[in-house]
C-alpha cells in the first residue's frame, strides 16, 4: 500500500515537471511566469536525485556503507575528521558555489531564457552533478587524493600534468574576469565603491574578533559582520550624497583595477585569519541569506519573465558576447550546469571529512543540484527585466555607442523597446548616475534582484536593495579573488620547490612575495586588458574562462571514465562518457571558432587582424589607437591560450582512450589505486548500540 502511494507521488512529480518544462519550452505567447521555471527545476531535481543519483550510487559506483572512509581510517583530528553530513554539505556547497552561477546565466540571457535554463537543468542533472559525485567517490576510495594525483595514478603522467597546469591557468583567467566584473560594477559609482571598500575593514574586524577577542565564536562574529555589512550599504548612500566624500570614491575603471590588483596582492600575503577566513564566513552567511530571501521573494511575487524564450542573437550577433547559441551558451554557463572546478573541491577537501560513503550522493550530487538552483534564480533575476533595459545595461559602449541616444536607438533597432528617460529614471531609482554599458553581469543582476526585492518588500528602498545586491556579489567575488590568488601562489611555490627547495617553503617571505607577485601580475594583466577594451573585456575573457573550465571538467570525466572501464564496468561507462563526449564537442567547437572564425566578434585572430588593418589605415579614434597594440597582442595571446587548452584536452582524451583500449585488449595498464576494503567501526558501533 505504502509502496503504491510512493509510486503515485513520484508519477505526479514527474508529470508536474514535464508539464512545467513543456510550459516554458513551448510557450510563444506574451510572457510566462517565473514560477514555472522554479517548478520545472524542483521536479527535475527531485526525480534526478531520487532515481538517477540513487541508481548511480547503487549500481555504477556500488557505494558500500560498511566500508571505512579515509576520514575514519586516517582520523588525525585535523585534515581527516569524520564529520556530520550536514556540516560537510555546508562546507562543500560554500566552496563550490561562488559568483560563477550568478554571472554565467546573466550573460547567457542574451539568447533568451530558454536555452540557458534547459542547459542549467539538463547539464546539472546529467553532467555536473554526476561529475561531482563520481569524483567525490573515487577520491574517497583513494584517501582523498586530488584530481591531478588521481589523473597521474590512473591515466599517466600526461593526464596528471595537464590537470595541474589547467587548474593554474583557469585560476588566473577566472580571477581576472571576476575582477573585471567588480570593476565594472564600481565604475563611477561612489555608493558601490565605498560599500565594497568597507567590506575590507569589516572582514578585518571580524577576523580580529574571532582570533583575539572571542576566539572561535563564529556565530557572534558573523552576526556582528553581517550587521556592519548592512550598515555599510546604508552609509554608502550617505557617502554618495556627501559633497567632499563623493569624489574620493568616484573613479574610472583603470584606477579601480589597480586598487583591486593591489588588494589581491595584500590578501595573498597577509595572514589568512585577518582577511580571508573572516571574509569567507561572512560571504557564506550573506550567500545563504540572500539566496533564501530571493527564493522567498520569487515565490511571493511570482514575477513575469519579460525576456523572449529565444532572441534573434542565437545567430551569433549578440551584443554581450559574440558567437552562436551552439556552442557558446554551453561554455558561458559553466558553473550551474557543469564545472571542472568542482572536481578540485570534490577531490581533496570534502572526501577527507566524509564519515560514510552513503553521504556521497547527498553531498556530491545534491550539492551540485543546489548550485544549479542558484543559477536558475540568477536566470530569473536577469530575465524579469525588460529586455531593452537588460541589453542597455549589458551592451558595451563599443557595440552600442557611448551616448545614451545612440545606445537606445541601436537597441530599439533590434526590436527591444527602451527609452533614454526610462533608463534615467531607473538609474536614479537605483541611486546611480547611469546604467548604460555596465557590463559584466553584476549590475544587471543587481537591478533584477532589486526589482524583485523591491516589489516583494517595498519599492521605496530600491537604491538600497540595488547596492545591497552589488555588495552581496562583490563580497564573494572578492572571496574567490583573494583565495584564488593564494591558491595560485601555493601551486607556484609547489612547482618552484622542484627547482629550489627554499622557494617551495610556504612560509619563506621572499618566496611568498615573489610567487604572489607573479600570480597577481598574471591575472592583473588580463584584468588591465579587459578594462581598456572598448568592446568590454567580458566578451573576450568569459569565453576563455568557460573553455578552460569545461576543459577541466572533461579531464575529470576522463579520469572517471578511465577508472570505470578499468574496474570492469564498461557497460556503465556511458554515465560519465556521455557528458564527456558532449563537453569535448562543445569545448572543441568553441575553441575552433575562437581561433579560426572570420567574425571579428568571435575569432581572436580575426579581431587582431581587423584592428591591425584599421590601425594601419588610421581609421581608429585616438583613444582606441593608443591601446590598439596591446589589444592586438592580447588577442594573439588569447588565441594561443585557447589552442593550448584544446591540445591539452585532446592529449588527455587520447591517453585515456589508449588506456581503455589496452585494458579491453587484455594488455597491462596502470593498476587501480583504490585503497583495499576495511570495515567501518563507526557503523559497527552504531549497529551494536
Amino acid at each position: 500500500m505504502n509502496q503504491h502511494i510512493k509510486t503515485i507521488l513520484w508519477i505526479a512529480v514527474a508529470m508536474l515537471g514535464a508539464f512545467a518544462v513543456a510550459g516554458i519550452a513551448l510557450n510563444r505567447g506574451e510572457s510566462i511566469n517565473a514560477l514555472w521555471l522554479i517548478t520545472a527545476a524542483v521536479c527535475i531535481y527531485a526525480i534526478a536525485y531520487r532515481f538517477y543519483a540513487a541508481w548511480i550510487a547503487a549500481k555504477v559506483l556500488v557505494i558500500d556503507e560498511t566500508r571505512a572512509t579515509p576520514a575514519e581510517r586516517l582520523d588525525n583530528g585535523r585534515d581527516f575528521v569524520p564529520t556530520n553530513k550536514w556540516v560537510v554539505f555546508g562546507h562543500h556547497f560554500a566552496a563550490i558555489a561562488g559568483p560563477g552561477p550568478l554571472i554565467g546565466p546573466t550573460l547567457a540571457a542574451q539568447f533568451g531564457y530558454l536555452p540557458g535554463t534547459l542547459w542549467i537543468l539538463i547539464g546539472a542533472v546529467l553532467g555536473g552533478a554526476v561529475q561531482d559525485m563520481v569524483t567525490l567517490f573515487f577520491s574517497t576510495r583513494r584517501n582523498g587524493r586530488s584530481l591531478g594525483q588521481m589523473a597521474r595514478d590512473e591515466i599517466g603522467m600526461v593526464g596528471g600534468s595537464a590537470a595541474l597546469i589547467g587548474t593554474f591557468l583557469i585560476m588566473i583567467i577566472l580571477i581576472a574576469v571576476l575582477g573585471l566584473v567588480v570593476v565594472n560594477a564600481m565604475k563611477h559609482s561612489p555608493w558601490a565603491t565605498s560599500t565594497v571598500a568597507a567590506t575590507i575593514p569589516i572582514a578585518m574586524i571580524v577576523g580580529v574578533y574571532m582570533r583575539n577577542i572571542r576566539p572561535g565564536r563564529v556565530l557572534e562574529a558573523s552576526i556582528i559582520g553581517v550587521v556592519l555589512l548592512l550598515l555599510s550599504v546604508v552609509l554608502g548612500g550617505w557617502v554618495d550624497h556627501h559633497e567632499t566624500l563623493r569624489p574620493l570614491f568616484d573613479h574610472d575603471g583603470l584606477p579601480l583595477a589597480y586598487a583591486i590588483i593591489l588588494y589581491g596582492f595584500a590578501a595573498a600575503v597577509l595572514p589568512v585569519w585577518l582577511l580571508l577566513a573572516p571574509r569567507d564566513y561572512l560571504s557564506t552567511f550573506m550567500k545563504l541569506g540572500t539566496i533564501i530571501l530571493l527564493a522567498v521573494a520569487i515565490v511571493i511575487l511570482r514575477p513575469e519573465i519579460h525576456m523572449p524564450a529565444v532572441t534573434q542573437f542565437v545567430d551569433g550577433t549578440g551584443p554581450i558576447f559574440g558567437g552562436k547559441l551552439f556552442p557558446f551558451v554551453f561554455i558561458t554557463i559553466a558553473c550551474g550546469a557543469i564545472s571542472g572546478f568542482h572536481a578540485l573541491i570534490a577531490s581533496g577537501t570534502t572526501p577527507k571529512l566524509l564519515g560514510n560513503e552513503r553521504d556521497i550522493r547527498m553531498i556530491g550530487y545534491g550539492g551540485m543540484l543546489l548550485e544549479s538552483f542558484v543559477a536558475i534564480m540568477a536566470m530569473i533575476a536577469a530575465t524579469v527585466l525588460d529586455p531593452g533595459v537588460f541589453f542597455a545595461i549589458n551592451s558595451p559602449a563599443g557595440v552600442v555607442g557611448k551616448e545614451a541616444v545612440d545606445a537606445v536607438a541601436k537597441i530599439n533597432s533590434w526590436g527591444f523597446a527602451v527609452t533614454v528617460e526610462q533608463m534615467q529614471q531607473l538609474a536614479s531609482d537605483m541611486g546611480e548616475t547611469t546604467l548604460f554599458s555596465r557590463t559584466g553581469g553584476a549590475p544587471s543582476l543587481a537591478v533584477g534582484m532589486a526589482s524583485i526585492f523591491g516589489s516583494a518588500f517595498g519599492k521605496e528602498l530600491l537604491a538600497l536593495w540595488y547596492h545591497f545586491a552589488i555588495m552581496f556579489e562583490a563580497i564573494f567575488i572578492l572571496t574567490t579573488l583573494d583565495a584564488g590568488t593564494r591558491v595560485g601562489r601555493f601551486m607556484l611555490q609547489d612547482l618552484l620547490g622542484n627547482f629550489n627547495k627554499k622557494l617551495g617553503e610556504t612560509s619563506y617571505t621572499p618566496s611568498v612575495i615573489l610567487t604572489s607577485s607573479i600570480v597577481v601580475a598574471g591575472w592583473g594583466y588580463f584584468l588591465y586588458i579587459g578594462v581598456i577594451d572598448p568592446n568590454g573585456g567580458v566578451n573576450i575573457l568569459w569565453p576563455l574562462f568557460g573553455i578552460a573550465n569545461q576543459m577541466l571538467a572533461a579531464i575529470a570525466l576522463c579520469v572517471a571514465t578511465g577508472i570505470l572501464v578499468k574496474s570492469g564496468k564498461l557497460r556503465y561507462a556511458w554515465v560519465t562518457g556521455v557528458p564527456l563526449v558532449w563537453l569535448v564537442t562543445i569545448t572543441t567547437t568553441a575553441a575552433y571558432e575562437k581561433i579560426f572564425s572570420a567574425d571579428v566578434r568571435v575569432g581572436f585572430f580575426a579581431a587582431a587582424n581587423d584592428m591591425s588593418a584599421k590601425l594601419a589605415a588610421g581609421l581608429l579614434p585616438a583613444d582606441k589607437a593608443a591601446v590598439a597594440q596591446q589589444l592586438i597582442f592580447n588577442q594573439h595571446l588569447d588565441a594561443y591560450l585557447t589552442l593550448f587548452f584544446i591540445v591539452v584536452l585532446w592529449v588527455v582524451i587520447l591517453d585515456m582512450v589508449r588506456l581503455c583500449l589496452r585494458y579491453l585488449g587484455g594488455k597491462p595498464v596502470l593498476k587501480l589505486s583504490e585503497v583495499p576494503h576495511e570495515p567501518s567501526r563507526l557503523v559497527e558501533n552504531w549497529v551494536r548500540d
Partner: protein
Amino acid sequence: MFKKLWCFVRHVSGDDAYEQYLKHHAEFHQATVDTPPALSRKAFFKLWQDSKWKGINRCC
C-alpha cells in the same frame, strides 16, 4: 524544538567546534601520563583555521 534547531545551526556553522573537540579529547585521550592536555580555545581555533585554509578551498 528550538533548542535542537539552535544546536544544529551552531554545529553546521562550526560554532561548537571547540566543545566537540573537548568532548572528543575527554573520550579518546583519557588523562594518562603521556597524553598532552587539551588545547586552549584560542590555540584550537588557530589550528582549526590554519588547517582549513590549506590548499584549494574555493571555486567559481
